[in-house]
């Protein structure tokens, strides 16, 4: 192809020179603004997505590691822990942990508090040893995760606070179901059971819903004290949670044929479809909204390059007259757009990554600045904004259930943002450069 055989170096050379001279010249702020616009867009998108990923992964991690597991295996007609099945499941390749559990819906009451609906999970006393990732997700704030003695309970930090309980206190857990199933528990004429438990530990997952309404008892207590709490579920964790379908096939292969009809296996994708779907929609929507910035910047670059083409009409005429083909002239301005995109994206990526990694420090610095300004402003300013010095907080723990803003930079997304930004600027260059090909040297170079 003739085009590829030609020397394209001069096109880069002229294009780079145009970008450089436009930056240098006074009044040509358009290209600086174009670079700044792309940089701002890339930076914003990287930071927003990193923080959003942080929040979403915290939520997903809490859901998967604490509650839902990667796979749930249920034997429909089995209400006790099947040791043989447990061993088989643990032997399946890719499985890192298996914890049998029973979920119970109940209500709790502290010494002086109102009753509160909670979810109790009955797990083996050595559940933490069985599932190391649960240990990572479950921070014990007080006491210990000790379910070895019947009647012990471990509750979420917000729940314990709401019930006014400290480690060692007793808590009443009510179960209407248990009353009919186990008359021995019946402690009142109304027919309700009132098993009393001792709070031995307080945990925090960082996921407010779990910390407010969750607790653990031993699986024996769950089955005995709360009646028929349903079949035992075997929570399975995988080395790679995205390999859930293959793991499901391997588990089915490992089970005897006679169990085929009795065993139900549910993946984390099905079990959490609604919430993960919502998180996905939220992220996509946010990407599209913030991505609109590239549309605005693209139009800005288009205008800037169109002006550049107009201002360089004479240059284009000269280059055409001295042998430059129209496509080469077009490429000069397309490269101009590409350079703007590349430069802006590079700056935006570096700043965006820096801000993402140091987001908590940035927020702390911003808080210090605002609080400093409030202190300097004195009562007049503080009265005007309705806040005293030291009170300003971007993510106040009073409103947000956070000790720090979680951040997760996904490099695949950063690459995509970078490429998209470069592409939007280059496309703007393609459209702007179309005029350059229509310039007729004979008309431009006429000098009468």
């Amino acid at each position: 192809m003739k085009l590829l055989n030609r020397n394209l170096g001069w096109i880069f050379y002229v294009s780079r020179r145009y970008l450089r001279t436009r930056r240098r010249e006074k009044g040509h702020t358009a290209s600086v603004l174009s670079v700044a616009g792309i940089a701002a867009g890339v930076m914003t998108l990287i930071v927003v997505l990193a923080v959003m990923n942080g929040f979403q992964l915290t939520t997903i991690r809490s859901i998967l590691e604490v509650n839902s597991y990667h796979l749930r295996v249920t034997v429909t007609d089995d209400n006790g822990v099947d040791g043989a099945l447990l061993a088989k499941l643990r032997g399946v390749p890719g499985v890192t942990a298996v914890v049998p559990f029973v979920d119970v819906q109940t209500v709790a009451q502290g010494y002086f508090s109102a009753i509160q609906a909670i979810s109790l999970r009955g797990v083996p006393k050595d559940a933490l040893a069985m599932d190391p990732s649960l240990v990572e997700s479950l921070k014990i704030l007080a006491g210990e995760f000790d379910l070895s003695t019947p009647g012990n309970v471990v509750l979420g930090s917000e729940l314990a606070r709401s019930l006014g309980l400290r480690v060692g206190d007793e808590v009443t857990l009510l179960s209407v179901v248990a009353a009919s199933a186990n008359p021995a528990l019946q402690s009142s004429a109304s027919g309700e059971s009132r098993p009393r438990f001792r709070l031995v530990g307080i945990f925090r997952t960082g996921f407010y819903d779990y910390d407010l309404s969750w607790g653990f008892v031993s699986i024996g207590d769950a089955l005995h004290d709360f009646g028929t709490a349903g079949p035992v579920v075997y929570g399975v964790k995988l080395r790679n949670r995205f390999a859930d379908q293959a793991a499901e096939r391997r588990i089915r292969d490992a089970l005897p044929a006679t169990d085929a009809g009795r065993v139900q296996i549910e993946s984390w994708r099905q079990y959490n479809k609604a919430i993960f779907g919502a998180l996905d929609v939220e992220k996509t929507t946010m990407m599209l909204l913030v991505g609109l910035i590239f549309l605005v910047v693209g139009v800005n670059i288009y205008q800037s390059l169109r002006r550049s083409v107009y201002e360089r009409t004479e240059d284009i005429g000269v280059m055409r007259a001295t042998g430059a083909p129209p496509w080469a002239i077009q490429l000069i301005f397309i490269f101009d757009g590409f350079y703007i995109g590349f430069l802006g994206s590079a700056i935006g990526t570096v700043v965006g990554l820096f801000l993402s990694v140091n987001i908590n420090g940035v927020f702390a610095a911003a808080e210090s600045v605002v609080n400093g300004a409030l202190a300097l402003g004195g009562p007049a300013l503080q009265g005007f904004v309705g806040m005293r010095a030291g009170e300003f907080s971007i993510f106040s723990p009073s409103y947000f259930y956070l000790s720090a803003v979680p951040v997760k930079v996904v490099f695949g997304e950063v690459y995509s943002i970078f490429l998209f930004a470069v592409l939007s600027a280059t496309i703007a260059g393609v459209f702007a450069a179309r005029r350059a090909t229509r310039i007729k040297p004979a008309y431009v170079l006429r000098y009468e």
Partner: protein
Amino acid sequence: MALVSLDSVTKEYLSGSERLRVLDEVTVELEAGKIAVVSGESGSGKSTLLNLIAGLDLPSGGRITVGGYRVQALREEDMTDYRTRVVGLVFQFHFLLRDFTALENVMLPAYMAGMKRGAAEKRAFELLGEVGLSDRAHHYPTQLSGGERQRTAVARALVNDPEIILADEPTGNLDVANSRLVQERLFRLVRGYGKTLILVTHDLELATSGDRRFHIEEGRLRES
């Protein structure tokens, strides 16, 4: 065989509903290595004649053949080769690229034609030396005088070693001293390199120079 051959070339423009004939049945042949000077009043069709030979514009009728190329039948890719290797242009106004130094302005057509950048710069520097601008090579057009800019344009026209130089009133914007300097350098280079020059002018003194002299009036070319 003639290097440049124009056979019954006409050029018409539409001015409103009126058809304006700028060149009228121009027929001429030029041999290689000659300097041809075309004189005429402003608007007589001199520049149009050069534009047609340069392939910057198309004739309304007739045939133009230059160095074996049938100019009006060239495709875009061949036209690029033609403008790069066959003709070199010098305009009345210098038309140097303002963001590039004198050296870069001269070097660029060679770089565009496929020469390596270093070689193109070396060739450009030699030519700038020949027009007496070695010490001004790294100056931008805004830092050069009118005569220096036009001499730079002469060097640019020669950088690809074209067969023909087409010069459209190259001294039209210069004072007498600079005008003579540009003319002297242009003629010396053209003769030194054995090139063909077609020079358009309304400068009476310049009109009497050259190997062949033509006058154009109301689109008709005649040799004097």
